[in-house]
């Protein structure tokens, strides 16, 4: 069991954004996490990655370790990488540096070595840079390595965010709407990259996505949230026909573009 949450809850004022979710994820699984707007998907991510503190009584275990009260960087050290809905690339840093920050935990020298500039440090830096350039080549951004992230297009930035997460060499990769804002062609491209990553590195992946096609095509199992609660879980086909899910999506007023997106999926 790579990730398990028990009674995971988080409230903001009176709003229960996540309400007692029990969630289990096996090693090597690709899981989809869907749900209407405001159903608590992003909050769930923020809780698992330690950015929010969960309420009393919640428990999160990652790889058998209790991480309920861990700070984000310690959770990252356990091999949990994530992307953000709003990307959050380091825009005033170069593309290569973005990846290098992602690789932070695997750069094997301390501050003293850095200051002294030991041979080990230099060799390590060279290795790291070469490796990150390889990764950049894999996601197709190698030519932009020395450019600032702010100079990239939105699509490229999305790839960069993914690359940064990959640079962390994660066991668990959490993707928060990786396809949002991409053109259909780029969505295909992204799907290829995700599948490629999974096959190449044997990752465990959770994907939050509005474009249901992405989830349905890549995930073996899908979890559906609504109002902070888990309302369904199963294979894509099971979920598609689940009554509660249909109700969650269709049984309320939907915004135009949301309907379109659902239908598209």
């Amino acid at each position, binding site marked *: 069991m790579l990730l398990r949450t028990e009674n995971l809850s988080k409230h*903001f004022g009176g709003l229960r954004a996540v309400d007692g979710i029990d969630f289990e994820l096996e090693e090597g699984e690709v899981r989809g996490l869907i749900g209407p707007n405001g159903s608590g998907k992003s909050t769930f991510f*923020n809780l698992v990655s330690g*950015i*929010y503190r969960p309420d009393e009584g919640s428990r999160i275990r990652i790889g058998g370790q209790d991480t309920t009260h861990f700070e984000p960087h310690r959770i990252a050290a356990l091999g949990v990488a994530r992307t953000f809905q709003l990307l959050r690339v380091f825009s*005033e840093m170069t593309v290569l540096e973005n990846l290098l920050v992602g690789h932070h935990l695997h750069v094997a020298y301390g501050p003293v070595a850095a200051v002294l500039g030991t041979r080990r440090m230099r060799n390590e830096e060279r290795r790291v840079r070469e490796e990150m350039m390889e990764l950049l080549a894999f996601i197709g951004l190698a030519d932009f390595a020395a450019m600032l992230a702010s100079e990239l297009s939105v699509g490229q930035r999305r790839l960069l965010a993914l690359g940064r997460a990959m640079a962390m060499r994660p066991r668990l990769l959490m993707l928060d709407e990786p396809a949002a804002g991409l053109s259909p062609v780029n969505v295909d491209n992204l799907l290829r990259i995700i599948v490629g990553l999974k096959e190449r590195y044997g990752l465990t992946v959770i994907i939050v996505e509005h474009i249901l096609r992405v989830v349905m095509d890549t995930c073996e199992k899908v979890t559906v949230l609504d109002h902070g609660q888990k309302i369904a879980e199963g294979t894509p086909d099971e979920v598609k026909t689940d009554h509660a899910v249909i109700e969650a999506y269709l049984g309320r007023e939907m915004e135009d573009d949301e309907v379109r997106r659902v239908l598209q999926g």
Partner: protein
Amino acid sequence: MDLLLDFIIVGLSIGIVYGLVALGISLIFSGLDIVHFAHGEVYMIGAFLGIAIVSISGVPYFGALVGAMIVTGAVGVVIERVFYRRLTRGGGGYTVAGMGMIICGFGMSVALQNVAYLIWGAAPHPYPVSFGMPIFLGNIALPKSYLYILVSALVLMAVLHTFLTRTKLGLAVRAVAYNKDTSYLMGVNVPAMISLIFGVACAMAAVAGVLIGPINYVQIEMGYLMLLKAFAAAVVGGFGSLPGALLGGVVVGLFETLCAGYLIASYKDIYAFLLLITVLMVRPTGLLGIIVKVKA
């Protein structure tokens, strides 16, 4: 016991002075999310303009007050339009532009001080006004200035508070304060609102300058120490809250007076900083704190 009472009267009276200056700072913060480090110099310029108006046109004190308000407000709008516009567009607060804003404020502050030096020179000026007999509170004789400061601080606070909460324009201002982009989409004239807030805050600084002038005398370096105390007041009361600014001023005034009274008086100005730091560390929202926007 008598001494304690005297300290309290003194602390309260200086506290409302801090509070009056803190009002403008708080308004800028609540409206624009900027901590304006050049506000002390605006206060100084307001005081000088008041004197200039009196000596040129010979209008009575109240006229000078209104005149200084108008002119300083206009100066504020110009400063905002010409210099801060680019930065306010980028957003204040915690953004990178917010850091630029802080640095810019410091630069503006020394530049304005130099400009004032070139115009008015380094000599301190008395305020050509007399209010007659002071008010006696116990053993302390308070000049009437303090009374006017208290009254105008309360009036300004009440008027602004009503304006912000009860009028349509005030609603627009608050919308801008909350989220500039959304307000823009909602059809609020955001640049005009920003100029309005800045102008009004600068006009309030002029009120402070003219009213405090008779106590403080007017000279180019008068802004800095006052600014620090006013910041302390604004923070202690809860940054961005107008009643909080006044309350904060009183708390800071009392605190530093009592500390100076019963501890080492030479370190008087350090006590205000200690209060500022403690409040920020323990309760960043201040005494009447507004809810800090959650960002994640």
